[in-house]
């Protein structure tokens, strides 16, 4: 029987995967051709979506991007009519974009069905949990410390130190909270993972719960991701039935259970303390730190808060060992990072590689340059609070420290590419406008500085007077300093990055000459 694989990922569906699956089924029925369509997760090769894969003795053969109208000709090709097909891609796993990646987190992407426990187990699922139960909590924490894993949400704090702090915070009620409020533009790795491999995140959270002594976990998912919410809820039920959640987790004698909490459209709730407030049922107002959430977090109790990708990295570390994981990467940035290529890019998608490849390799070799074919102007790395990096700096390795050294940050690994039609003064203004709209209002630089900043950019763009322009540019730089050093959290603190980088590298967009900008 002809066996096809088509993603059920929400973005594959947003470009027509459901219609392709229906058209293929309809056409096969008409021909009385037995057909088995399996809906898998997505590979992350989004420019090829909808991507249809066919099982053969030589592995899966790919076709894409397929439209519903291609169904008859595709079935002709698949049933051996000569001539192949114009959309044929050859063996999917030989596509250079994919076979040069180092996929640890996304090893199952595009291969397994998201809610099949059988598929998950057949591809290494629950090996990490088995190892964790055998090792015991103290050893698990030691392994996470030893792996060099750092928080993947953006702050890059060493994960093992958080684990140790929560574990040592005494007995009593503790929590594990997964930050799945992936609000940064240009990022979609959390979404892909939750929709496509929910058991991996669940396994990571169970390991975390057992290791730090928490019996309850929350996954806070943004409301813009309804598919992820539905998949996680279904996955909980499946895992609970299989004995991995409840009063005796995987034969450990310990209890752990999970619940999804849905955000409500507030970007600031991606900040960990605002997120905790939101789970508690309050406005998403940032808390001052200390106290650290590891000691006084959710409902005032010790809480381990991590991004989706951090928690989902843990099963691999436990299954294959800390040394295996640490062997990937460079300097103090160890392991792999799923980079996300977005915006004006020809080959948009997910690229999981060890830290250390350059931005140029990512944007040019993988991304293939701009989608419009126009000259590349800049890439914003790390979401709306990340710096705009000009091509002259593209040889910087993707490494936390190297990016910090040039006044940028890797953040969650999102890269938004822009061509020469995007005006950077407008983007600087947009960053400030976004901050004004999404600020929680607790600290002054963020609440007021964002609005004042928009006004300064407006005056800067409007003026024809040399000295006025000079004054406004100075004021804007000054304001960026105030935001960066005076804000309570990263929302205000990092809004300075896109603004200051736009001003520094693209002064002409603000009407400034290079000499004026240098002053």
């Amino acid at each position, binding site marked *: 029987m002809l066996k096809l694989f088509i993603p059920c990922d929400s*973005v594959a569906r*947003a*470009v027509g995967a459901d219609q392709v699956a229906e058209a293929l089924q309809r056409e096969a029925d008409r021909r009385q051709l037995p057909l088995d369509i399996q809906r898998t997760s997505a590979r992350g090769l989004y420019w090829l979506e909808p991507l249809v894969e066919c099982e053969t003795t030589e592995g899966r053969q790919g076709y894409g991007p397929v439209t519903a109208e291609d169904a008859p000709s595709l079935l002709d090709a698949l049933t051996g009519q000569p001539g192949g097909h114009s959309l044929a891609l050859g063996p999917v796993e030989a596509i250079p974009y994919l076979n040069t990646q180092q996929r640890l987190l996304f090893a199952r992407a595009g291969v397994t069905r998201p809610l099949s426990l059988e598929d998950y187990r057949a591809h290494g699922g629950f090996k990490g949990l088995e190892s964790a139960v055998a090792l015991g909590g103290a050893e698990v924490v030691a392994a996470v410390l030893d792996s060099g894993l750092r928080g993947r949400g953006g702050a890059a704090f060493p994960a093992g130190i958080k684990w140790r702090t929560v574990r040592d915070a005494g007995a009593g009620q503790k929590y594990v909270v997964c930050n799945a409020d992936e609000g940064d533009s240009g990022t979609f790795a959390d979404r892909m993972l939750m929709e496509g491999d929910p058991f991996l995140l669940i396994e990571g959270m169970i390991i975390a719960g057992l290791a730090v002594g928490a019996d309850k976990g929350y996954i806070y998912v943004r409301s813009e991701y309804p598919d992820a919410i539905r998949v996680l809820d279904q996955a909980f039920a499946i895992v609970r039935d299989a004995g991995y959640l409840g009063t005796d987790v995987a034969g450990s004698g310990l209890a752990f259970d999970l619940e999804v909490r849905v955000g409500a*459209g*507030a970007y600031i709730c991606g900040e960990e303390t605002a997120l905790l407030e939101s789970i508690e*049922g*309050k406005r998403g107002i940032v808390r001052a730190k200390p106290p650290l959430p590891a000691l006084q977090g959710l409902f005032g109790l010790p809480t381990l808060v991590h991004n989706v990708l951090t928690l989902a990295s843990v099963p691999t570390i436990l299954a294959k060992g800390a040394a295996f994981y640490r062997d990937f990467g460079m300097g103090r940035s160890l392991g792999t990072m799923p980079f996300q290529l977005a915006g*004006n890019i020809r080959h948009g998608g997910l690229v999981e590689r060890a830290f250390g490849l350059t931005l140029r390799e990512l944007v040019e070799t993988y991304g293939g340059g701009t989608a419009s074919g126009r000259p590349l102007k800049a890439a914003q790395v790390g979401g709306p609070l990340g710096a705009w990096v000009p091509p002259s700096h593209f040889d910087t390795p993707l490494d936390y420290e190297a990016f910090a050294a040039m006044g940028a940050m890797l953040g969650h690994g999102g890269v938004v590419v822009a061509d020469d039609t*995007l005006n950077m003064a407008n983007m600087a203004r947009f960053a400030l406008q976004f901050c004004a709209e999404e600020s929680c209002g607790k600290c002054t630089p963020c609440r007021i500085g964002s609005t004042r900043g928009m006004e300064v950019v407006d005056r800067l763009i409007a003026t024809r007077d040399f000295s006025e322009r000079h004054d406004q540019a100075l004021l804007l730089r000054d304001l960026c300093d105030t935001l960066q050093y005076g804000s309570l959290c990263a929302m205000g603190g990092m809004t300075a990055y896109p603004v200051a980088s736009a001003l520094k590298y693209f002064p002409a967009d603000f009407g400034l000459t290079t000499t004026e900008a240098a002053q």
Partner: protein
Amino acid sequence: MPDELLHLPVIQRILSQHQGTQGALLPILHALQEAIGFIPDAAVADIARALNLSLAEVRGVISFYHDFRTSPPARHTLRLCRAESCQSRGSEALAAQLREQLALDDHGTSADGAISLRPVYCLGACACSPALELDGQVHARLTPERLRSLVNDCLEDTAC
């Protein structure tokens, strides 16, 4: 508002379903909006009483989060993504096209209640920008023609 009294049984049902839930306010508000389409003013006092909160605390939460509505929605809600990735693929021009076609601003609702516009900042479809969400369904690799036809479908659909 006598109409709102019709919602009281739903409100009571949802409140009792969430008894014992820690930090229940957001789940309750989501459930209410799902069931009724918006958060009726009549619910505020009941929620406050059930959760031992002040009216101001409940209203504060409703107004803080962009998702919560306090009046019935239009028949269709179109949320065009306005974040950086979609901007780099021309979403500002699409937003201008929407404003012109519907004679509405970015947050507007058509007078006949057919369609509401809402900006959204990222739908996670950034590898296939520009994107929008129409009544819960994401459409990516949007073109001006596709946007126009989606809007026309909303305007013609007066049945629901």
